[in-house]
């Protein structure tokens, strides 16, 4: 079994160590674990989703995102651990009635139209059937609402799934890979919709393997890999502050000057660029020192890490930790 990640990659994890659920916590899982035979699909996942935020649950395919979401929704019984959703144990009817979900692709009756499918779900939710029409409009499917579900494209099916999740204005909207099958315009619209939901006071728990897709819309993210939650924090914390990228000659002299300001570990080479762990406000100081040190400065830019880079860095660190643990 994989070892727990070292402190270098675990920040702000399980902030409610005493396992008390805050009123602002819409979802809190405590060491949620699901084992299928020898495989741990989710390994002691402790995450917290706060009221009104867009929470991104990130990880590659097969990382354990959907299994965790299924446990949060009560579709799957955890092997151990627990989850509290809207103040109720996961899966309790009182909680589920206030949650809208699209998990692992849309599941609808193929012989019914999109509108009738939503009417069926509206009846399950004890909502008026007019909720189906509103939901169809919200995802731009009103024009195809009377077509059978089986005739829909993948993207249309996905949008119908999102429409179903939004019916009744649930407090928590759980969307598992909601942009699957959407074209670029559909993806942009979906991002807008999610941001709009959060603005309206709804909490969104969103899973994705497309890290760049969610970094602009999520307030906080949890990163999962091989069933383990590697990190949970705000996007900005996760990406770290901006740093400076410098191209200058001669390189050895530029390195020496930069290390003098940022420390030996604060400077890395990236091709012919030098990445310096200094904030943008320190750019004038760095340039002044470089010029004073006889370095010809060709370019200075601020750079921010993408979530993708952070993710690969984290998974690399996790692998090296595993290797060390097995030695």
């Amino acid at each position, binding site marked *: 079994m994989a070892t727990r990640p070292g402190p270098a990659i675990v920040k702000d994890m399980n902030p409610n160590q005493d396992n008390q659920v805050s009123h602002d916590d819409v979802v809190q899982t405590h060491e949620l674990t699901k084992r299928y035979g020898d495989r741990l699909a989710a390994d002691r996942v402790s995450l917290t989703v706060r009221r009104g935020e867009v929470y991104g649950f990130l990880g590659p395919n097969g990382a354990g995102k959907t299994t965790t979401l299924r446990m949060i929704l009560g579709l799957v019984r955890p092997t151990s651990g627990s989850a509290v959703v809207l103040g109720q144990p996961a899966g309790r009817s009182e909680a589920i009635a*206030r949650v809208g979900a699209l998990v692992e692709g849309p599941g609808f009756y193929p012989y019914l139209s999109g509108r009738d499918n939503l009417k069926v779900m509206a009846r399950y*939710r004890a909502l008026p059937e007019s909720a189906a029409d509103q939901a169809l409009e919200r995802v731009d499917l009103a024009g195809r609402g009377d077509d059978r579900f089986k005739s829909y494209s993948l993207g249309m099916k996905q949008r119908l799934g999102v429409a179903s999740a939004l019916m009744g204005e649930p407090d928590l909207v759980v969307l598992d890979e909601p942009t699957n099958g959407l074209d670029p315009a559909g993806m942009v619209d979906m991002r807008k919709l999610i941001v709009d939901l959060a603005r309206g006071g709804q909490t969104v728990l969103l899973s994705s393997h497309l890290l760049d897709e969610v970094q602009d819309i999520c307030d906080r993210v949890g990163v999962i890999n091989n069933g383990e939650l590697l990190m949970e924090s705000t996007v900005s914390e996760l990406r770290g502050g901006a740093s400076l990228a410098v191209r200058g000659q001669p390189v050895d002299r530029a390195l020496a000057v930069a290390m003098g300001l940022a420390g030996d570990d604060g400077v890395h080479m990236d091709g012919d660029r030098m990445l310096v762990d200094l904030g943008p406000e320190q750019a004038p100081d760095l340039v002044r020192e470089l010029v004073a040190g006889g370095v010809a400065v060709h370019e200075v830019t601020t750079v921010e890490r993408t979530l993708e880079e952070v993710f690969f860095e984290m998974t690399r660190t996790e692998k090296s930790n595993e290797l060390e643990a097995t030695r």
Partner: protein
Amino acid sequence: MSTATTGTPTTMTSPARRTSPLAGSLASTRAELLRLRKWPAVWVTIGAWLALTVMFGFLFNYVSYKTGDTSFSNEGVTARSLLDDILPANVPHVLIQGMPMFGGALMLVLGALVAGNGYGWGTWKTVFTQGPARPAVVTGSFAALTVFVVTTVVATLALCFGLSLLVAGVESQAVVWPSFSDTAESLGAGFLVMEMWALLGFLLGTVARGPALSVGLGLVWALVVENLLRGVGQLLGPVEAFTKILPGTAGGSLVGSIVGTGGADPTPGVLDTLSGGTAVIVLAVHLVLAPLLAGWLVTRRDVA
């Protein structure tokens, strides 16, 4: 995708929703009724049963009566008797004589489709995230299925009366109505038999989590295996005891206690193995156990 076509919530918390078991069951029943009503497979299955009733209950007898030919189902029967069988007075018997085997088999198919298809389509997953608890959802599904079984039995009765009146009119026969008690008895027995098979189909669809295996195994069981076991049971005591608790035995015996099995060539599936009272008890046990077991499975299992 529109983000402003509908209002966003003004409060952070939705109003309390109906989540009591009864409210959840009612909501689930309404939802299931909608999707079953619009499902062509449901009407094809019911239509197949009605077509069988028309053919075996009326058409073949009437053609034999008119032509004087006999078929496998009415060999040795007089022409007058052939006509009497399809006049209104005999409707209580015609209504149920095909139910133990053919009607039951089709209701088994219906139950298996209702339960099994939702796993492949992922619709149970969607339904279980709507609010009603799983026991309420399953109860709603049973209730909706029951509505369709009742509809089928009542439609069969209406069809039988309609056709028998047509025959009486065409053949200039006096219309003699069956007694209300006989009609009610047949309706009740028919419902019990059809409902039992439908719920057993639902159980099979739940166990197999799909329609194909459950329909296949269910039909082989209902149409072949039970008959073989009853044959073997005539030679082996323990097997005979076992066959007495089988659903086909119970359904066939209940119908047999009403329509009789003394004809030259009794309708397939119509038996005299159990008395009418015992058959009702065995049927009732199946009617209780099948939904309980299916409900327990649905509630306990993970949903992929």
